[in-house]
């Protein structure tokens, strides 16, 4: 997204432009902590990769030491919060024109302070050409890595770590980009790399791949032959010529041979019978545009045909395309897709990758970083620090400057723990977390983008308020506002920029942007206060429940869960009420709830089920802190425990809005245990287990959960999953199919969404599902 001051001399990279000044903090971020560099120098673009450590402020919660105290003071908060520095690992990738390589190397040299790095992994055709320059500028030894090995390592990495990495491209449909959910097993696949030639590689495992074929007719043929035919020198210009041309003036079509009879013969008259066939028979001049278009079709069709033949021979249906011929060019993605559909009759899908341009750099980096075992970790795309897809494509974003001079960024955060699928998913390969695809649904997209824009002021205010002692909080909050606002504007024009646009991705992007400007947990104090208030009510609520007969109690518990869920700072309607009337109580919330029958109401079925044998183990995904978790979830947990059901309570690893975090849940549980013998003994006997989800999102992606959680779910034989809240049970997972019983409940705290679902504000979703036998 960031640009530098001077315009480049074009993609051929003949001269090195030293005059540019780089906006330092924007492009090569965290250089002072950088180590392990890798560089991939292609024909026109350079991709630089490095690893850095990022200092983050995080809000930590810690129980007060209560030893020696029997009772606590009323005014005292339930635990203390401290802001601490935490160091996390991040991967940075920067893509720029070869023209800027010298300026960039100078910049890196000047800013590289504390590195013990001695070598730089280099790959790509230009690695040799620039070897001396790199060694001289950076004083690092250039270690050359095999291009294809790097490419495949990079490809495996993005397919495993970046959701919505792969997409299908359909030019004339809306949306043009259809992102794929990541398959739990990415292997085997075919990678067709279209550089100057074409390499077709079958990838079977992380370390096993095989070159199964190739073709000399590739990007170099388009460029070389195109330059000869049209006297146009640059690849991008050739593509632009092609996009304006009419290939039918140059190609001999089936209808040119068969006349009008092709229709009665059932032939498609527009099929090309002979590429350039007309230029052989007619004595005439041909336009550059027409020839370029014909050439593009010829090459794309040929590659598509060969790819299909290889896919068929090796029984593969996932074919990823990459290389400079494809990279960011809707024109070539379109023709390749057409060709694949035509030759495979729809059996093979042409897949493209959002970060295709970075594969070589990622792979080279991973080769150099093997001792850090980067593949043992899970990584997450940082939306705040990454440019979107097509950020540099003039075709799609005419308002932006021409390609040259544009820098493109990708940042990936190392997640503290590996993420895996929830073992209870019915079909992990078809699981889609998000309920509504906003790239698809223009009406919903408009609504939500506006909604997030309107909520921005409040978020900024809350961020500032959360750090009263900080002198630069207002300034940082303003930067946050600008960054998130810009992201929202980008998404308005390019909803596909970061994969499928969803309410979840909008929420996650906001969290990433907040973190970026050191607002790790703007709700920490609110949560602390809410937890304190709710803890005080716990015993009263529990005794009231215990006084009810069994059937009344079951309904009251469910209502409690739902009422608790009304307390949600994430929802606009609620945050308005909470902001103006902090005394808004639990009982008040219950009154707000829709009367039965609810909007979605399978309570009767649930009650029937409860009359049967107890569940073995329930996995509960908690939502908000305060009333929700303490007065809603814990009494419900308590009832399950009393029935003889074990409970795994899963909370977010990191903060998101006012959602209860794992560390907060530990304190809350400890405090409740002190009051309640049921919870106390369950914790002690490990019938109640608190785990973290691995996520810091207000939504829930069941395909990326903490490995420890997954292991526990398997060990304990969980047979009931309870998902609570709008973010986790409506925006995501509403349609999620599990192989055990599930309960999805939420209160719709957004009038637009409520209306869309056919209800009103505070409508209730109570969805109890039993998998088909």
């Amino acid at each position, binding site marked *: 997204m960031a640009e530098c001051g001077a315009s480049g001399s074009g993609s051929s990279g003949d001269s090195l432009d030293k005059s540019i000044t780089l906006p330092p903090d924007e492009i090569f971020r965290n250089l002072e902590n950088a180590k392990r560099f890798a560089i991939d120098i292609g024909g026109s673009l350079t991709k630089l990769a490095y690893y850095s450590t990022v200092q983050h402020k995080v809000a930590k919660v810690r129980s007060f030491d209560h030893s020696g105290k029997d009772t606590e003071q009323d005014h005292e908060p339930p635990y203390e919060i401290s802001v601490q520095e935490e160091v996390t690992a991040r991967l940075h990738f920067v893509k720029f024109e070869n023209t800027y390589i010298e300026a960039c190397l100078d910049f890196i040299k000047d800013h590289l302070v504390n590195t013990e790095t001695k070598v730089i992994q280099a790959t790509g055709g230009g690695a040799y050409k620039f070897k001396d320059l790199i060694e001289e500028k950076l004083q690092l030894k250039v270690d050359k890595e095999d291009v294809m090995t790097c490419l495949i390592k990079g490809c495996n990495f993005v397919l495993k770590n970046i959701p919505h990495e792969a997409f299908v491209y359909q030019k004339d449909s809306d949306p043009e980009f259809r992102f794929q959910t990541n398959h739990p097993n990415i292997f085997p696949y075919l990678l067709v790399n279209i550089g100057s030639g074409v390499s077709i590689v079958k990838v079977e495992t992380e370390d096993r791949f095989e070159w199964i074929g190739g073709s000399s007719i590739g990007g170099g043929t388009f460029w*070389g032959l195109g330059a000869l035919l049209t006297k146009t020198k640059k690849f991008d210009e050739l593509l632009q010529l092609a996009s304006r041309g009419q290939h039918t003036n140059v190609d001999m079509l089936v209808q040119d041979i068969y006349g009008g009879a092709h229709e009665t013969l059932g032939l498609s008259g527009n099929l090309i019978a002979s590429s350039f066939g007309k230029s052989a028979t007619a004595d005439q001049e041909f336009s550059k545009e027409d020839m370029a278009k014909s050439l593009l079709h010829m090459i794309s069709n040929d590659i598509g045909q060969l790819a299909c033949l290889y896919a068929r021979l090796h029984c593969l249906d996932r074919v990823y395309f990459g290389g400079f011929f494809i990279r960011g060019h809707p024109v070539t993605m379109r023709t390749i897709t057409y060709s694949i559909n035509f030759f495979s009759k729809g059996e093979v899908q042409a897949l493209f990758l959002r970060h295709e341009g970075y594969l070589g750099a990622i792979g080279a980096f991973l080769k150099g970083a093997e001792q850090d075992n980067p593949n043992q970790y899970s990584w997450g795309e940082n939306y705040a620090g990454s440019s979107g897809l097509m950020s540099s494509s003039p075709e799609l974003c005419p308002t932006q400057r021409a390609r040259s001079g544009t820098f493109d960024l990708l940042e990936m955060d190392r997640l503290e723990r590996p993420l895996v699928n929830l073992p209870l998913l019915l079909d992990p390969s078809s699981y889609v977390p998000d309920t509504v695809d906003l790239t698809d649904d223009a009406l919903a997209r408009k609504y939500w983008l506006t909604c997030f824009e309107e909520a921005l002021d409040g978020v900024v205010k809350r961020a500032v308020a959360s750090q009263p002692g900080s002198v630069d909080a207002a300034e940082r909050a303003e930067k946050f506002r600008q960054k998130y606002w810009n992201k929202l504007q980008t998404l308005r024009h390019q909803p596909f920029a970061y994969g499928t646009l969803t309410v979840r991705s909008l929420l996650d992007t906001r969290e990433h942007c907040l973190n970026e400007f050191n607002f790790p947990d703007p709700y920490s104090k609110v949560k602390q206060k809410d937890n304190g208030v709710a803890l005080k009510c716990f015993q009263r609520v529990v005794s009231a429940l215990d006084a009810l007969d069994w059937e009344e109690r079951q309904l009251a518990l469910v209502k409690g869960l739902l009422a608790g869920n009304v307390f949600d700072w994430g929802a606009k309607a609620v945050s308005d009420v909470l902001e103006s009337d902090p005394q808004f109580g639990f009982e008040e919330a219950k009154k707000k709830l829709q009367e039965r029958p609810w909007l979605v109401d399978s309570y009767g079925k649930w009650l029937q089920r409860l009359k049967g044998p107890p569940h073995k183990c329930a996995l509960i995904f908690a939502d908000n802190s305060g009333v929700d978790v303490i007065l809603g979830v814990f009494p419900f947990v308590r009832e399950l425990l009393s029935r003889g059901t074990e409970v795994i309570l899963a909370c977010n690893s990191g903060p998101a809005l006012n959602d209860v975090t794992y560390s907060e849940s530990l304190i809350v549980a400890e405090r409740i245990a002190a009051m309640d013998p049921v919870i106390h003994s369950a914790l002690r006997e490990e019938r109640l287990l608190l785990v973290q989800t691995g996520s810091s999102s207000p939504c829930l992606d069941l395909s990326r959960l903490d490995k420890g959680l997954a292991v526990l779910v398997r060990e304990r034989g969980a047979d009931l999953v309870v998902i609570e809240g709008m973010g986790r049970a409506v925006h995501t997972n509403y349609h999620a199919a599990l192989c055990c019983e599930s309960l999805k409940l939420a209160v719709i705290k957004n009038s637009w969404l409520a209306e869309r679902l056919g209800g009103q504000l505070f409508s209730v979703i109570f969805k109890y599902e039993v998998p088909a036998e």
Partner: protein
Amino acid sequence: MKLKDAFFPWFGLDIGGTLVKLVYFEPKDITAEEEEEEVESLKSIRKYLTSNVAYGSTGIRDVHLELKDLTLCGRKGNLHFIRFPTHDMPAFIQMGRDKNFSSLHTVFCATGGGAYKFEQDFLTIGDLQLCKLDELDCLIKGILYIDSVGFNGRSQCYYFENPADCEKCQKLPFDLKNPYPLLLVNIGSGVSILAVYSKDNYKRVTGTSLGGGTFFGLCCLLTGCTTFEEALEMASRGDSTKVDKLVRDIYGGDYERFGLPGWAVASSFGNMMSKEKREAVSKEDLARATLITITNNIGSIARMCALNENINQVVFVGNFLRINTIAMRLLAYALDYWSKGQLKALFSEHEVSGVISCDMLTFIKGMLFTLC
């Protein structure tokens, strides 16, 4: 209608995208009685066709392809092969009208796309009803037929031994005694690939638009040549390695990681990305590179089809291979090399000895099958 009942002249047309191929059966066993009955126009046609080797400015009779003393439907005679560009079709139809062909009550057998395209013109302008025959049927039956009758006493099918070696390269006869299954690659303007399992059981596997028309079309644009012969002649003098980027140009030698030899083409026309190199190549080099590009690609697609269909003999036919030894040897070599000797490239004598395509031969057989 049966051919044996049909009146002379016996004609067959294969109207392709670029070329029209005409076969004419000249009966040599005409009885005195027949000769007497023979109308003047028929005589003049026979005389015109058999006594000339060129017709107008573009029609050519390939004398050396003539099949002599052939027995066709009980009649003995010679089979003549004539070709002219498809864009002269209107003139040909006009000639048929001028010579009053329709009065002869003959059958005009025709195949190829043009049989459809020009059907109406034959009818309205020439008052001639075409008997259209399926192109692929004709092709298959033609190949098998020609193989069975041989080429004037010699074997029809050939292969190359040591195709890459100028000195040792040898053209050797191949007895197609077990013809099935075979992959038939017909390279005309475009390319059709057929898998043939028996005389009547075949399927079109695929095709590519990168064929003879592409070679010639690109050559016209790149070199300004005007005939196929000229394009091939230039190609024979050029050096494609100046135009193409080879594996060794990138890796300095073989790319061992993938077992790619240094001489293999990594990127066709890849060197032409550079301005300096564009300025340093000749038209001959460009013609050669175009030929190599198209031929290698056909070889590659044919090889993949053969693997997918589990067939190991591949017969290449079609006009592209006419007087095109470079392409045939390259196909032979490429197929052998990349399949590690598993696949054999076979050619038809009619291409090897030069000039006309097999399409034509095919067509004779098509005629026989359909009409006899």
